[in-house]
């Protein structure tokens, strides 16, 4: 792609579809420019992510989709050279970089599941209760309830209910990832960010997680980054395609996969590059 193409290309619409514009936006990104040191990772990205839907971010490696995801719970704060030069991110209508926003409180609202499942080397029970314990919850009964509720919510309860006090690392890869999802929902967030949650899982474990995502979206807003286009097609309501730090196209998932508006999107989903 040469630079003139970029200029002539019409910018992607912020809304997935005019029909959904009326739906309340959970996350609103306005004209975001993001840098790692001198390198610009996101160019003028604007996107509105509706509540209680699954939104998939697709695109080739290094296109900025994970960077944008990690902006939503400000995990990029951990990276020294990361900075936002322009634009705003609003969640629940609040600018998350406003001085009044406590990043701790933000992260309780915006949970995250990582690419590499990262259960703590503690028991399954302690993994789930971790988020509450750091908030100072000590009531054993309440913790027990949360553990059961979260594990049921992550479709893991029946598999682990007899070994809650054994190490979370003793679980299989797929179970570990669902444990991480259970851990995230234990603190009752409103949004769950998933950064390639199935990239290390086999097809059966993947389908279990995908099933779970479908169940979760009734209660949570889910944003999922994935390299697997079939996965985006199967489990998302709308899909955003990123390329070289720009949002190329954002639309309902059926539309992206059957009738993409942009040539680049079509090239990517038909496997011509990426």
């Amino acid at each position: 792609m040469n630079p003139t193409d970029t200029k002539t290309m019409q910018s992607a619409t912020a809304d997935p579809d005019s029909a959904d514009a009326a739906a309340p936006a959970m996350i609103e990104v306005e004209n975001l420019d993001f840098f790692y040191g001198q390198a610009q990772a996101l160019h003028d990205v604007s996107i509105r992510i509706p509540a209680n839907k699954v939104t998939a971010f697709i695109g080739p490696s290094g296109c900025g989709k994970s960077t944008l995801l990690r902006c939503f719970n400000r995990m990029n704060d951990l990276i020294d050279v990361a900075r936002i030069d322009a634009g705003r991110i609003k969640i629940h209508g609040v600018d998350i970089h406003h001085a009044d926003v406590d990043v701790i409180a933000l992260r309780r609202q915006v949970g995250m599941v990582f690419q590499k499942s990262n259960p703590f080397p503690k028991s399954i029970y302690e993994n789930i209760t971790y988020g509450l314990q750091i908030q100072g919850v000590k009531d054993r009964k309440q913790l027990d309830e949360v553990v059961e509720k979260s594990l049921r919510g992550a479709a893991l309860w029946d598999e682990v209910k007899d070994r809650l006090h054994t190490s979370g690392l003793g679980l299989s890869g797929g179970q570990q990832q669902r444990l991480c999802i259970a851990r995230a929902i234990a603190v009752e967030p409103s949004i769950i960010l998933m950064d390639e949650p199935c990239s290390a899982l086999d097809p059966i474990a993947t389908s279990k997680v995908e099933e779970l995502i479908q169940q979760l979206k009734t209660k949570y807003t889910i944003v999922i980054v994935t390299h697997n286009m079939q996965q985006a097609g199967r489990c998302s309501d709308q899909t955003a395609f990123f390329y070289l730090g720009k949002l190329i196209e954002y639309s309902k998932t059926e539309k992206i996969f059957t009738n993409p508006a942009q040539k680049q999107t079509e090239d990517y989903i038909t496997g011509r590059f990426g």
Partner: protein
Amino acid sequence: MHAPANPFAGQKSSSRSIERVAFGVCRSATYFILLCAACIFGTILFKGAGTVFQTTAPFINVPFLTQAPETLFVFEHEGVKMKMGDKEFRRFKEEKGLPDIAAESYVYSSGGIFPCIVGTVLLVVGSMFIALFIGISSAIYLNEYSTHGRFVTFIRLAILNLAGVPSIVFGLFGVGLFVAFMPLLQNFDNPAAPTLPVGFGHYLNFSGWNVCLLSGWFTLAFMALPVVITASEESLKAVPMGFREGSLALGATKWQSIRTNVLPYALPGMLTSSILGIARVAGETAPIMFTAAYVVRDKMPWDVERPLDMLFQGVMALPYHIYVVSSKIPQNEYTERVQYGAAFVFLVIVMGIALTSILLRIKMRARYRW
């Protein structure tokens, strides 16, 4: 016809002989180290065992481990050559009514090394706590909190340089800072030193802590710091980033995440490597000879009026005692006993510390595995 030529036949070439030479050099260098180690350990174990062990029950020379050093008196009595420690000799003179009996005296050659063992243990334990606290805290700051910039690079450079400072310089630094300058909180204005009144009739007198345990602890701790910081940072780096991200993403503060999800897994590595480093430093004579060690002291460290006075007294220490008995007193056939005995005991103590840290690592590693 003749059989086909062997395609794998060895060829004489210079690279073949260079190979042999290189192999030989590397191997003999390794064997040379082994030889040195065997000489050191062999001599000390062989000669020291004679002092520490004995052939009759209880097979261990208990007085050597439980008594203070004494002067040895050698004399002839009724045609028999006798050797006695100071106290025994005095009792003997009284009993026999021979106050003027002629005897040759050899300092420190009788009795034991108990005060030195106690002093060394106190020095090691105290400096270990100080070094671990300062070292682990700064490793956490450098690895978890600080942003990478010129200032942090400068700090790391300073730590590296600290590791290269000779031990005698640390000793002199300890004299300058702790022995001669650090403030004491006293209820009078010391006219001989800079003073800072703090109210309630008390003054901070910058007269130094003198030669004492506290000065020795800090000097040794500072010397061990580079090892402790480096080891602690390595252990922190070995903890997967995912543990930190996982807990931060759940709304943990940075310190909560470090305390619950980083430190427990880094601690085994931190402790073991640090303890080994401190054991190494504890063997140094130079840093303590001006700051904490006495050639001889009759009182034991716990013979104090107030508990706090324990910190402000000098102690005898094994490395310094070995130095004194092997270079500061006239050498003769009677001094070898203490020299090798003390070296033997010292070696056993240092090995004990090392062994403890290794066992600790095995135990803690088994508990936290990922």
